[in-house]
């Protein structure tokens, strides 16, 4: 097969570009543990409110950081206001009591699907104290656009 010179050049350039893209991803994974939220844990979606893991939604803070337990439902998050310390590791554990929701902390890379029957979990650090908007970013019914909550990142006093 006769392949023209410029064509070969273009194919090599495409190959190099793709390898470069994949290298950046590999560096992100290996170097910064940059991974999408991929926790695998199941829960009975009809018994979320009685499940010991979700019976008390809210924030627990300890020496290492904070754990947030939250539930998404049509059309609110429980709790509606989440307070976490700045500069510490914050682990979110979320599930849904009804349909699929999204949990997106606007202005950060905190973003996960919230799926009934499953527990989503991710850990992040908020460097900037302040108030953040949390929105549902997966269509969940006629009240989808009002489904939101507040994240308040507080300065930790030494």
């Amino acid at each position, binding site marked *: 097969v006769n392949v*023209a010179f410029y064509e070969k050049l273009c194919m090599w350039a495409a190959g190099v570009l793709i390898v470069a893209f994949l290298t950046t*991803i590999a560096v992100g994974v290996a170097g910064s543990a940059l991974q999408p939220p991929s926790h695998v844990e199941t829960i009975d979606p009809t018994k979320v409110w009685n499940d010991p893991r979700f019976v008390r939604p809210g924030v627990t803070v300890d020496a290492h950081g904070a754990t947030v337990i939250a539930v998404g439902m049509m059309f609110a998050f429980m709790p509606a206001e989440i307070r976490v310390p700045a500069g510490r590791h914050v682990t979110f554990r979320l599930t849904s009591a*009804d349909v699929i929701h999204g949990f997106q902390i606007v202005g950060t890379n905190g973003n996960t699907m919230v799926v009934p029957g499953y527990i989503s979990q991710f850990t992040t650090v908020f460097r900037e104290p302040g108030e953040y908007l949390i929105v549902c970013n997966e269509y969940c019914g006629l009240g989808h656009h009002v489904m939101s909550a507040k994240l308040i990142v507080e300065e930790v006093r030494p």
Partner: protein
Amino acid sequence: MNRTDRLSLAHLWVAIGAFGVAAAMAFMQALSRASLDLPWRSAKLYYISVTAHGVLMALVFTTFFIMAFGYVVVTRALERAPAAPGLAWAGFWTALAGTLAAVVAILAGKATVLYTFYPPLQAHPAFYIGLTLVIVGSWCWAAVMLLSYRAWRREHEGAPAPLAMHGMLATVIVWLIATVGVAAEVLLQLIPWSLGWTKTVDPVLARMLFWYFGHPLVYFWLLPAYVIWYTVLPRVAGGKLFSDPLARLVFVLFILLSTPVGFHHQFMDPGVSAGWKLLHTFLTFGILFPSFVTAFTVTASMEVAGRMQGATGLLDWLGKLPWREPLFSSVALSMILFAFGGVGGAINASFGMNAVVHNTAWIQGHFHLTVGSAVALTFMGASYWLLPRLSGRELELGLLARVQPYLWFVGMMLFSFSNHITGLMGMPRRVYDAGYDGSAVAATWRGLTGVSAVGGLFLFASAAFFMMVMIGTALAGKKKEPDPILWAEPLYPVVERRTILDRYGLWTAIAILLVIVAYAYPLWAHLRMARFGSPGFSPF
């Protein structure tokens, strides 16, 4: 008009009708997002219209256009009537009946589940059964395409299929592999559940099956557009195809890599572990390759055309191209928009980076450049070229046809770029109102949602021009002997014998092997895990 052109025309008109309805819905959505207080504005209507727009554009307009174009390729490239015309018509009526059932369910407000219909959102059974019939109809088409090729091959010992048919065969193979996933989801999970025969479904399993189908679906849309870029555009531009064998290679690569990549739509999902998402990421970047090659080959073919018209300088060939010819300008502009879409796609596929854009307005900005421009604008341009040749009527309102692709381009630049930016600023997609109760950060999106609405206005005007030209041509176009449908010739003569690139059975087998590598273990492990199903909800 001969009988087989009636088949193509019937499909083409359903596609055009679906496009017209869906375009009107889109305009209303763009205005709604900009928080313009229209008298009929309501959340219920907005979400119904998002559902109808998605189903009619992404599933009905595309599928019917592709079926129409497939029959054109059989009659004009293989130069024979489609095999089993009865089956072809049965497929048409089945898909049309399914479309109507789904659309009635949507417009009645019983299926406001968007075109992705993720359970446990539960629609009326007519919605799922309707979509199943659309797919069954498309399977009839796929069978007719394969039977037609087999009959042709028997008469052309050892000869490779014409390039247009090669591309359509790749489309058929991708489609047949892909639809297994959605058929399993709808037949085994959703229909029994919506009829009340089963109580619960597993939403993550449903999403795995849906996206097994959902990503190759985009190549089902894109490959026929590529067929037009490779085999129609160079001729319309007055030139030749730069390379026939590389085009064949591109289609083969799509057969291989279209399907084993679906987890890149589930990066943010719980219940799917990170390792499998990473494997799908690597395969996803593999698919960039054939599109890079396409960008080169098609642009090179345009340069060949410009030089055949006498261009000699570095860039003056651009000026020699027929920018007033609607098929040419549609494809050229759709390629520019698709270049941005491709870059955005690489960002979406970048594993952890996806968290920044997932389910934000960035995503709708992205796929309106890909399916909404590379595919839809190409199909509109091709309709200007096809309709007169199939119906034997001259194109009416030619001025509108000439302006329309440019309007689409401007509208899409405004719409898509503003949505990419608001997405990066955190605005979620598919919300009726992005005000969030006076939230300060939500207020920063407002100027750009206005830009997006202006883009919507341009797009709606463009869509209206397209509809006027189509309907005007059908009703008032002057009757004449239709121009022939001719395919681009390659710059270098084609190899006369079939090569390894024409071994469709072999490539299908390797594609299935790759699917098994990418999906067998995660699916098996998922099914073995202790899982809890969800009952259905219909909050609309």
